[in-house]
């Protein structure tokens, strides 16, 4: 404290703002903290948080986790069949988006999608039979995240579906996702009519093999640089993937043409990709999953490695707390609705796609994508403000994902549960909105925020692990 007498006094004022004003009036320097009780006023968690702030063990663990995330190099290696390539995928197993949930608790779109997947697999002849299988517990239902996979919205992956195979070449871990079916009546929004099943079959029989041959010819495709380029072209690679989908097609098309695939099938594949502005979303998500899995499992780390929703609950996973999920009720997204729909029609937040925000893109890179803020009637400045706000709850910036509108600063990445709970600033998520009934599809898009309760639970759990290790 002796050094304090030699320095200029600089005060951080927490509480009565008049104290900061009087320091300033007396010629001193003071900064007022816009304080509110942390952890939603939960004093126990507030105290646990205080013991984790700037704790050397946590700082070191975060450095390790964040470095692993930064150094990850996700590349597209190929296309496989879920039942063959996904870790621990059982014969009669269907994966879904978000944290674990029992069949009877699932939201409409997710149940609809599972019924569709059962029909697609041919395990039942009709909807009633599929329903009986699912509700009778004869199909094992597990989160994608438990199998190194992610899926948007309902996130349903069944054993015979083709999946993207992404490898983080730095660390060797793999990640997977299903194919994007486009918009409208699609499985991921719970539709399971014959046209939906027919499209899935076409994806499995035509699109998948065509793209597999193309990717084989290409060798491998570096997804990180493609995403970085798309960020410079107005995408945030979550809710806007126009540029990334176009770049993907541009990289692949020559290889596609060099394969033995019949030209009519190549044409159909190209038409399908060109007609779907969200085609790249599943690849973006898979790349993000690969980068974050590299950071997962570092004891003591407070870095979030997954945020995911199942239409009922919102859940997060944290590097230092293993496979535990911290969940709370999923919020209903407020946003811009397609004509004829309102917030009343919306399902609560759904899908694994918040993995993009977890990895520093999506809502976190909103400054790259001013077009996105129109979903909430905002301005380009709002997009920059949203990205700036995320810098206060993250461990650092990802220099690979630069943001032109912010003087090419890296996107904020590595959500720190401590900072979220301490500041009350909630991670921002750009997302589509599903109708709460199965099969109607997307009814809007908007911006939502991860609920604080997940983060306060995580702080408490991390504090327990730190107490245990001391």
């Amino acid at each position, binding site marked *: 404290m002796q050094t304090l007498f030699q320095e200029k006094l*600089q005060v951080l004022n927490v509480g009565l703002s008049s104290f900061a004003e009087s320091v300033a009036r007396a010629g001193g320097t003071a900064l007022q*903290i816009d304080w509110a009780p942390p952890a939603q006023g939960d004093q126990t968690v507030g105290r646990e948080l205080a013991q984790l702030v700037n704790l050397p063990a946590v700082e070191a663990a975060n450095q390790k986790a964040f470095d692993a995330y930064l150094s990850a190099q996700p590349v597209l290696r190929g296309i496989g069949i879920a039942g063959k390539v996904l870790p621990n995928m059982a014969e009669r197993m269907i994966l879904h988006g978000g944290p674990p949930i029992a069949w009877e608790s699932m939201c409409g779109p997710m149940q609809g999608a599972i019924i569709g997947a059962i029909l697609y697999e041919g395990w039942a002849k009709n909807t009633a039979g599929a329903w009986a299988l699912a509700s009778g517990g004869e199909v094992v239902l597990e989160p994608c995240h438990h199998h190194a996979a992610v899926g948007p919205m309902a996130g349903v992956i069944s054993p015979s579906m083709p999946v993207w195979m992404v490898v983080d070449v730095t660390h060797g871990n793999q990640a997977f996702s299903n194919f994007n079916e486009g918009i409208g009546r699609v499985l991921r929004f719970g539709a399971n009519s014959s046209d939906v099943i027919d499209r899935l079959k076409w994806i499995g029989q035509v699109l998948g093999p065509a793209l597999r041959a193309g990717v084989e010819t290409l060798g491998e495709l570096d997804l990180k640089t493609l995403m970085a380029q798309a960020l410079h072209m107005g995408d945030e690679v979550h809710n806007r993937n126009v540029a990334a989908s176009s770049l993907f097609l541009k990289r692949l098309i020559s290889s596609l043409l060099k394969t033995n695939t019949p030209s009519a099938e190549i044409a159909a594949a190209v038409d399908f990709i060109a007609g779907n502005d969200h085609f790249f979303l599943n690849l973006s998500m898979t790349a993000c999953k690969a980068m974050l899995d590299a950071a997962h499992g570092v004891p003591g780390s407070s870095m979030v490695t997954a945020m995911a929703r199942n239409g009922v609950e919102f859940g997060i996973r944290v590097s230092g707390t293993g496979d535990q999920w911290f969940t709370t009720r999923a919020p209903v997204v407020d946003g811009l609705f397609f004509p004829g729909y309102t917030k009343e029609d919306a399902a609560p937040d759904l899908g694994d796609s918040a993995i993009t925000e977890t990895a520093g893109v999506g809502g976190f890179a909103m400054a790259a994508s001013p077009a996105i803020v129109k979903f909430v009637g905002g301005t380009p400045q709002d997009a920059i*403000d949203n990205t700036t706000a995320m810098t206060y709850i993250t461990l650092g910036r990802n220099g690979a994902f630069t943001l032109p509108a912010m003087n090419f600063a890296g996107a904020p990445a590595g959500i720190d549960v401590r900072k979220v709970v301490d500041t009350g600033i909630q991670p921002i998520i750009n997302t589509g909105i599903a109708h709460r009934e199965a099969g109607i599809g997307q009814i809007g898009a908007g911006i939502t925020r991860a609920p604080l309760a997940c983060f306060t639970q995580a702080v408490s759990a991390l504090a327990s692990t730190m107490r245990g290790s001391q």
Partner: protein
Amino acid sequence: MARATKILRNFYRDSVSLMQLSSTFAKLPGVEQASAIMASANNISLLTEAGLLGETIEAGANDLLIALQGDDDALAVAMAAAESAVNQNPPPMSGNGPSSAMAPRSIEMGLGNMVGANLALISTPGEYASAEAFKALRLGLNVMLFSDNVELNDEIALKRFAQDHDLIVMGPDCGTAIINGIPLAFANVVRRGEIGVVAASGTGLQQVTCLIDRWGKGISQAIGTGGHDLHRDVGGISMLQGLKSLAADPSTSVIVLVSKPPSPEVAARVLEVAGSAGKPVVVNFLGADPEGIRRQNVFPARTLEDAAAAAVALADGRRPEEGQPERSPVALFPRLVSGQRYLRGLYSGGTFCYEAALLLKKELGQVYSNTPVDPEDRLNNVWTSKGHTVIDLGDDLFTRGRPHPMIDHRLRNERILKEAGDPEVAVILLDVVLGYGSHPDPASEMAPVIEKAKALAEKAGRHLVVVGFVCGTTLDPQNLSNQEAALQNAGMLLAESNAQAVRLAATVVLGPTTVEGMP
């Protein structure tokens, strides 16, 4: 009579802002009672007790609750006005850090804007304060903890952590400090100089620093420790740190320590370190035996005034005994009538009240108080004085749901008039505390009431003496000279210090000759 409530979710405001809002709402047409509070379980039960809440409230500590009581037809309009008043009051932002898109929401985030920050001044509600203090310490900041109601175990843990990391925790319940010339919280603007102070009492620190300023010297550093620092279990960690850092500080030539008497083992340790400070140390352990303190280079002082006087003398190279400043002459000819025999002290500063009780007990015998020196002197009903009484109106009993008497004079003003109406009262004794955080113009609140009190007594055929002193400096926002002039005009007999004011007041009751022996 009707009631209305409104909950604003996630709308945290600090307690001072809430008090301002409550008083604004109470002035709305048709409103009898009003409150704006954070809806913690505790606050809700307080409001229910106060009769402001009828129904159950579903709200939490981060939700702002407005409760109004008044005329049925006026309430809807009043509530709308209240709500718009709340929305007009965004949390103020001040500071010289680089601008950011968002005001900092945590200490860590604040450090991003103010990289060179070296002290966190924490005044949150007590239940959150120790967590904030821990964060600040873990981030390498010294801490001034203004908040009270912090558990002793937390205080010990905080202070030990700080000590291990070469940081200091001033507080909890530290009302004032002056670091590098900058007044913090409830502090006065004193000139800089060579005298360093470490005090466990906020008003004690203010009195000593203001008198030093008044007598022409200045302050190098004034470090508050909070009232529990010299508790046996805390061990005087902050006082020892403060003492050692002032001993090592080349800008400090004299050190003053102020506290209630510490536990014997803590006192021994503090005095041992004081004796080896290498510079003179004046020690005022309020009420302690001076002979237990006296040693080479350590000078006991019996009152805050004596401590300031001794420090000024030592800074001039004189022995304290030779250097007592000129006392204001006791020249009183009060026209007391028979039956006027009691003294009533109405204090806003707790240490002043305690010092008065100590000094008066020797001269007047039993002196009742809500913060008595001896348990047998406890005033059971604090709302009614008996015999000689000195009251600390800053006591929790009086401040629950109401601003401190240094900010809000209403309660004391009512009490002054009540005492003036008592035919047995001869003299009313008052303190006036200036500085940042205090009322912007206390004399404007007090002068009319003093005049009214004296007139009231006069009308009843009595002469009421009002004695007081102003703790402040000419550099304070309220300006010491202006305040003294206004109070004197209203008929207050002015002393320079609490000890002098107490002597004056005792003179009124006893007659001039019997108080010679008082310090």
